[in-house]
C-alpha cells in the first residue's frame, strides 16, 4: 500500500487509471520477454556447434603451427612472420533486435596470408596459416553471435525484473491502496449517513 495517500475520490480515480496502465504494461513486457527468450534460444542454438567448430579449427591450426615452428630454425621463423601481408579491417554496425542494439561485425580482408618465401620455411606453416584464414570467418561469426547473445540476455533479465515488479509489487500495491481508499470513502459515507440519521432523530423529537 502506498504511504501518504489522500483518501479522496479524485485519488481513487487516478489510481484506477494507473492500475489499468500497469497491467497493460505488464502484458506488453511479458510478451517482450517471451520474444527475447525465443530469439536468445535461437542464437544460443547456433552458438554451440559454431563454437565447437571454431575450437576444433583453432586447435588444428595451433598444432600445425607448433610443428612448423619446431621444424624451422628459430631465426627463420622470426624472419618469416615478422611482417604480415594480410590486411585486416573490422567495422562494427548496429542492428536492432527487439529494440536491443546488437553489433554486426563487418570484416574486410585483403592480401595473401602467406608472407614469406619458400627456401627457409616449412610447408606446415602454409597449412597452418591457411587453416587460420578459414577459421577467421567462423571466429568472427562466433564473436558476433556471442555478443548478441550477451546483450539480449541482459535485456531479458531487465525485462523479466520489470515484469516481476509490475506483477508482484506495483499492481498489488495499487490495488491495496484502491481498496483502502474505497474502504475509507465507504466509511466516510456511512459516517455521514449515521450523522444525518442522528440529526433527523433530534429534529423529530
Amino acid at each position, binding site marked *: 500500500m502506498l504511504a501518504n495517500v489522500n483518501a479522496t475520490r479524485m485519488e481513487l480515480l487516478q489510481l484506477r487509471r494507473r492500475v489499468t496502465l500497469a497491467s497493460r504494461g505488464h502484458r506488453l513486457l511479458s510478451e517482450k520477454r517471451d520474444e527475447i527468450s525465443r530469439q536468445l534460444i535461437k542464437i544460443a542454438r547456433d552458438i554451440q556447434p559454431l563454437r565447437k567448430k571454431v575450437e576444433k579449427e583453432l586447435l588444428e591450426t595451433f598444432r600445425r603451427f607448433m610443428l612448423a615452428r619446431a621444424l624451422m630454425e628459430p631465426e627463420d621463423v622470426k*624472419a618469416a612472420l*615478422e611482417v604480415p*601481408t594480410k590486411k585486416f579491417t573490422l567495422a562494427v554496425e548496429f542492428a536492432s533486435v527487439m529494440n536491443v542494439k546488437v553489433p554486426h561485425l563487418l570484416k574486410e580482408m585483403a592480401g595473401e596470408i602467406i*608472407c*614469406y*618465401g619458400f*627456401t*627457409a620455411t*616449412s*610447408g606446415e606453416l602454409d597449412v597452418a596459416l591457411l587453416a587460420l584464414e578459414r577459421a577467421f570467418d567462423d571466429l568472427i561469426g562466433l564473436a558476433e553471435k556471442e555478443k548478441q547473445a550477451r546483450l539480449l540476455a541482459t535485456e531479458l533479465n531487465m525485462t523479466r525484473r520489470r515484469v516481476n515488479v509490475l506483477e508482484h509489487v506495483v499492481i498489488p500495491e495499487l490495488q491495496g491502496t484502491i481498496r483502502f481508499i474505497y474502504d475509507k470513502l465507504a466509511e466516510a459515507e456511512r459516517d455521514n449517513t449515521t450523522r444525518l440519521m442522528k440529526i433527523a432523530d433530534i429534529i423529530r423529537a
Partner: protein
Amino acid sequence: MAELAEQSVTDFFTYPPIGGDDWRYTFATAYVRALETQLLSRATLLDMANAENFERAADLLSAGEYALPQANRSVAELENFLRNKRSAVRKMFSSLMVDEPIVTLFRTRDDFANMRLAIRRTVTERPLGTDYSDDGNVSAELFEEVFEQENYSLFPDYMAEAVERAVLAYYQNKDIRRIDYAIDSVQAEYNIREAHRLENIFLLGFFRIQIDLTNIRTMFRLKFTESDRRDVFLQGGFVEPDRLKHGLDLDYDAVGQLFFATPYHRLVETGAAYLLSDKSFLRTEQQCEDFLIGFLKTTNQITAGPQPVIAYLLMKENEIRTVRLLLTAKRNSLDTKLILDRLGE
C-alpha cells in the same frame, strides 16, 4: 668439375659424386666419425615419439648430451638449450675445418636469415631491433650499424648484392614475399658459385640437391595453395625448372611420373600421395630430409676429407631440429601419428 655443373638428372643413379680424399682432414674425419656414433639412434627417436608424455620423452634423453635440467623445462628454456647446442656444434665445425672458406660459406646461412629480417623491418619502417643471430659472418652489431646508416658497402659482396636485389624486388610491387624470393635466389647462386670457386664437388652436389629439394617442396606448396606464381623456382639444381613448372599443371597422381627419370621419383610420389590424403606436407618434408641425409651418409666412403665433417654438421643440426620437434610435440600433446609421419617409419 666443369662437367658436373652441366650434369642433369640422368647422369647419376641416386646421389651425385662426392669427390675424393683430402689427407689434411685425417684427424677431423676420425673425430667426427667417433662423434657420429653418439648421434641419437632411430630407436631412441621412435621411443620418444611413442612416449606417453613430455616428461617421459625428456627422460629418454637424460642419458646423453641432451639431458635437460630437471628444474626448468619450459618451452623458452628448451629453445634456448637447443640453440646453445647448435652454436656449440657450429663452433666445433669451424675449429675442425682446415679450409676457412667452407666455414664462411656455412656461416652465410645466418647472414641471409638476418638479412631477411632486417630488410623486412627497413622497408616497412619498423624499428630495426637487436635480436639478430650472432652465428653469421657479419656480427649482429655490425648488422644493425649497417642498416641504420644504410651503408651497405661495409658488407661482403654477396650480401651487398642480396640487399640490393631484395630491396629492388620489393619496390616493384611492394610485396614482402619478393624480398624472400630475391634473397633465396641470391643465396642459391652464391652457394653454387662458391662451390665452383672452391672446386669442391661434394659441396656443389649438396647445394644442387638442396636447390632441387627446395624446388620440389615449392612446387607442392604452390599446387596446394593454388598460387599462380611460376617464377619462384631456384636456378642451378639438377632438375630443370621447366619440369617443375610442368608439374604445377599436373594432378597429384601424375606428378610422380614426371620425375620418373630422376632420383626424386619415390620422394615425389610418396609426398604427393600423403598431401592428397592428409592435406599436409609432413611426408614430403620427411622424404626430402631423408634424401639429403642419404646423400650425406655417402661420405662414409671417405677416409679423410672435408665431406664427412660437413655431413656431420648438417646431420647434427638435423638431429637438434628433430629433438626440438619431438619435445615440442610431446609438450603440446600432439598426435603420435603426426610425429611418426614426420619421422618416417
